[in-house]
């Protein structure tokens, strides 16, 4: 695609703008901001990726992955603001998931250890791990809050903090994993996954694109499970003190 054809695609931005204007939706400003931001951000990423791929330097790969983890941590931690030390808990979870998945992929020779593979797959894994962290933390803080009575009940009967929070923890882990599992059930029926479509358009053999997509989906199952479970077990102890009491919050 040339930059000329790319600029013609702006027609797809003009249509919603016109609709917004005529129907008084008031979305013109946001649409324009979104368009400009996506152009700048993606072009920037494109140039950076090209640079990193060309250099094939481990240092740059490492920096890129680190940057992704930092950005993802920053995004996710706000959802768990009430949990002490949530920043490093999210960071440790993301790092663990990244190391685990890349370790398996590269260690078992599933994907080659090139910048191209490491960075694209890391992006998907870290991005999904971030979304899972947010889903989990949202649900967990809500569960803890609405079931405080039951937590206190279990403690009062001589239960440990882990026993007292068990139901809420399990419910939150389950709830946060469901979207990942559900979306895999219908994959391909309604819409093709974006990555697969991209590969096919770029000329890849559909079967190969499907194989790669399957790999990614299985990878994301692990990502979802490990993220929720790990974050859950890192988070719940901060709700209690040494004397096995629920820490009182205003």
């Amino acid at each position, binding site marked *: 695609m040339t930059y000329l054809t790319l600029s013609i695609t702006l027609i797809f931005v003009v249509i919603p703008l016109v609709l917004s204007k005529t129907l008084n939706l008031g979305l013109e400003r946001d649409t324009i901001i979104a368009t400009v931001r996506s152009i700048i951000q993606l072009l920037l990423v494109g140039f950076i990726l090209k640079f990193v791929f060309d250099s094939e330097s481990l240092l740059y790969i490492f920096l890129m992955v680190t940057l992704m983890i930092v950005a993802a941590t920053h995004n996710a931690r706000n959802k768990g603001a009430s949990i002490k030390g949530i920043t490093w808990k999210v960071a440790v979870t993301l790092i663990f998931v990244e190391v685990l998945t890349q370790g398996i992929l590269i260690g078992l020779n599933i994907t080659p250890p090139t910048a191209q593979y490491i960075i694209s797959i890391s992006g998907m894994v870290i991005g999904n791990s971030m979304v899972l962290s947010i889903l989990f933390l949202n649900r967990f803080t809500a569960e803890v809050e609405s079931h405080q009575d*039951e937590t*206190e009940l*279990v403690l*009062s*009967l*001589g*239960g440990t903090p882990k026993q007292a929070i068990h139901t809420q923890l399990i419910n939150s882990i389950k709830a946060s994993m469901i979207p990942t599992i559900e979306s895999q059930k219908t994959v391909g029926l309604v819409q093709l996954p974006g990555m697969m479509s991209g590969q096919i358009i770029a000329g890849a053999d559909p079967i190969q694109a499907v194989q790669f997509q399957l790999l990614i989906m299985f990878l994301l199952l692990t990502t979802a499970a490990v993220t929720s479970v790990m974050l859950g077990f890192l988070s719940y102890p901060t709700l209690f003190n040494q*004397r096995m*009491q*629920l820490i009182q919050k205003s």
Partner: protein
Amino acid sequence: MTTDYKPAIHFNHVDYSIDGNKILRGITGSFPEGKITTLVGPSGAGKTTLLKLCNGLLSPESGEIYIKDKGIDSFEPVELRRKVGIALQSAPMVSGTVYKNLALPVELRGEKYDKKEAESLLRDVGLDEKFLDRKVTDLSGGQQQKVSIARTLVNKPEILLLDEITSSLDRTSLKEMEELITLINRKYGTTIIWITHNLQQALDIGDYTWVMMDGEVVETGESKLLRSPANDRVKSFVQGGAQ
């Protein structure tokens, strides 16, 4: 109090606050072993907070609490809470059946609870054994209170803390519950601390009574003090009747 007794629980200048708000101030006094002490006072006086301090659900900000002459912190929290059982004011239920709720204290220890035992306990608190497999969400407030107290009894606590356990009960059930608690007290020598808004109840079942207001203990003594309180605020509280 001048009466001679051994304290089951002793408070020494205990303060408790949340976010800088003093909830309890300078609580000092004893709950006599093997007796029933009733705890009365207006809403928000700090009664529930005081009860939760007794079994380590909360810890004092300053001051000491002794359980049978041993500092409360020298007990493992789990051991303490089995020894000093509480029936919480809101009678919270874990979702599932009545049996699941009764079995909870036992299952927390990793053991299984015998159905026969559960049935007999259920009858003790005045519920038919057919309730065992009912979902707790299908029970009335009063029935849930009965399940809640039964569940607290499963651990056979030496000290029993009761927070408003008869507030949703009809007169007959209320009398039955009073008889059951008195029986437990007589039969096993269980020390009982019982919060109630019902001053007649406090007088009827209590050996001793603590009156709390605004986070302080304003009067203590034999329960008959409620008939002729020394303190003016207590007098007007008592005349105001149960609130």
